[in-house]
């Protein structure tokens, strides 16, 4: 039995791994939002009863989306290696993990967004249609603005999910908190690192969740919020 890692070292492990995790998750969330929200809007617009119903297109989009969602992340991580190399010029490290994280999260965000937008009551949407508003304006001022609190919450859910996925980043040398817990803590029987990481992950995800919940509430103008 070797002696436990000194606390200052545990702390510096945690700081470094947290930086990696936040980098991977932050950038991939931005990318997933940038592509996933439009995907969700597109899915909702083409859906039956949407503003631009198109059954064929909707089915194709839905199929691709669900295909992406059904892929286990660990498979995506290795399967996308060549794509990753093409985009970021390498296939290992934190930056390389961002590609599969984002790719995995886009369909996830897309479905969440579609579900949320479909909750905007049809009367409200049609009322906007009768004002002569363009589809783009209705998407922006009605669909998205009316669901903003739920959308913010959905991004929060995505961030938490991506923190989970990013634990597998170690497979391609991405580092991060999950990797720290597995490689440094579990595989080297370093209980202090393992449990410190677990505790810190719990705190971190709680704080992030709290932040998104607060932001969602701040964006909500309904006084008797029912979400």
């Amino acid at each position, binding site marked *: 039995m070797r002696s436990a890692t000194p606390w200052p070292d545990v702390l510096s492990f945690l700081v470094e791994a947290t930086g990696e995790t936040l980098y991977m998750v932050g950038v991939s969330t931005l990318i997933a939002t940038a592509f996933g929200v439009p995907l969700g809007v597109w899915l909702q617009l083409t859906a039956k009863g949407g503003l631009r119903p198109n059954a064929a297109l909707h089915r194709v989009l839905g199929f691709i989306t669900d295909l992406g969602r059904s892929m286990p992340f660990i498979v995506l991580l290795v399967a996308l290696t060549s794509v990753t190399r093409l985009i970021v010029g390498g296939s290992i490290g934190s930056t390389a993990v961002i590609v599969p994280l984002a790719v995995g999260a886009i369909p996830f965000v897309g479905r969440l967004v579609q579900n949320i937008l479909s909750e905007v*009551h049809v*009367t409200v949407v049609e*009322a*906007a249609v009768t004002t002569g508003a*363009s589809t783009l304006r209705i998407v922006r001022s009605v669909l998205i*603005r*009316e669901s903003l609190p739920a959308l913010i919450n959905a991004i929060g859910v995505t961030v938490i999910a991506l923190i989970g996925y990013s634990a597998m980043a170690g497979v391609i040398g991405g580092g991060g908190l999950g990797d720290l817990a597995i490689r440094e803590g579990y595989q080297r029987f370093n209980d202090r690192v393992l449990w410190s990481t677990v505790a810190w992950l719990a705190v971190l995800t709680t704080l992030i969740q709290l932040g998104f919940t607060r932001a969602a509430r701040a964006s909500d*103008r309904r006084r008797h919020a029912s979400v």
Partner: protein
Amino acid sequence: MITVENLTKSFQGVNALNGVTLDVEAGTVLGVVGPSGAGKSTLARCVALLERPDSGAIRVDGTDITALDGSALRAARRQIGVVPQGDSLLRQRTAAGNIALPLESAGVPGPQRRTRVGELLDLVGLTDKAAAYPDQLSGGQRQRIAVARALAANPSVLLADEPTSALDPETTGSVLTVLDRARAELGVTVLVVTHDMGVVRKICDDVAVLEQGRVVEHGKVLDLVSDAGSRTSGALLPAVDLNPINESSYDRVADVVLVGFAAVGALLPEASHRFGVELNIVGGGLTRLGETPVARFRLGLNGERSDSALEWISEAGGAVQRSLKGPQGVAA
């Protein structure tokens, strides 16, 4: 101002509209009434340009608006202000923000937008609620904001689809008052689709009765009530035969409809006086259609010249609907 010509629309083989033709004069209020499933909602959705009819035309100022697309369609939609059925306000926007929506769609710049929103809040009597969110407003207030929104872009036609269906009687009154003001102060032509004859009673100049996708009755409310067989008179006038009367005590028994202050107040006493007959009101009552008092009375007459008296009432503008008792009946 707005005409609907031979409109048909079917859903999966079921005909919702079966050749509907309507005409609303500029600055008047038409009520479209009918039982559930008569096609009222479909008609409203077609006029709101949310549904395309299978055939027929909807003309605003003579132009058919049913076949438009793209920006022409959006421009046509701004011609027709719509108060949709049910809660339709954006819950994340203030009352003022909701009213501004059509103005944003029309590209009206900010300062003018605010002025216009102020005018509309004033019209619907909710100036103090400008910054309130829909959840802070009552059902009637929300509906008045919806009316203000529908009027924001200066439409020539206002379409209200069951504007009072979810409201209690008192609140209904406030919403109808606002619709009436819109017509009176803005000169907008109003088409209101409703199952509630109370709406027709309070604000409609004209009425169209829809049944199974067809217009079965269409005309001025005050003309139709004088027509004994019309659905409108049946629905709007006081019932006459609530109390069974002893018909044998009268020489003649007849129902008469009187429209307007002068007729209601003076016609019967004068007939009695002129012809020296005893004239009793044995049933019916008085109501008000808009501002106009309208009476339907069951009369019991005694005297030799009873038939002449009824004839005179009829000539003087009272609609004598039927002679319940008498040798040959008196023509109305």
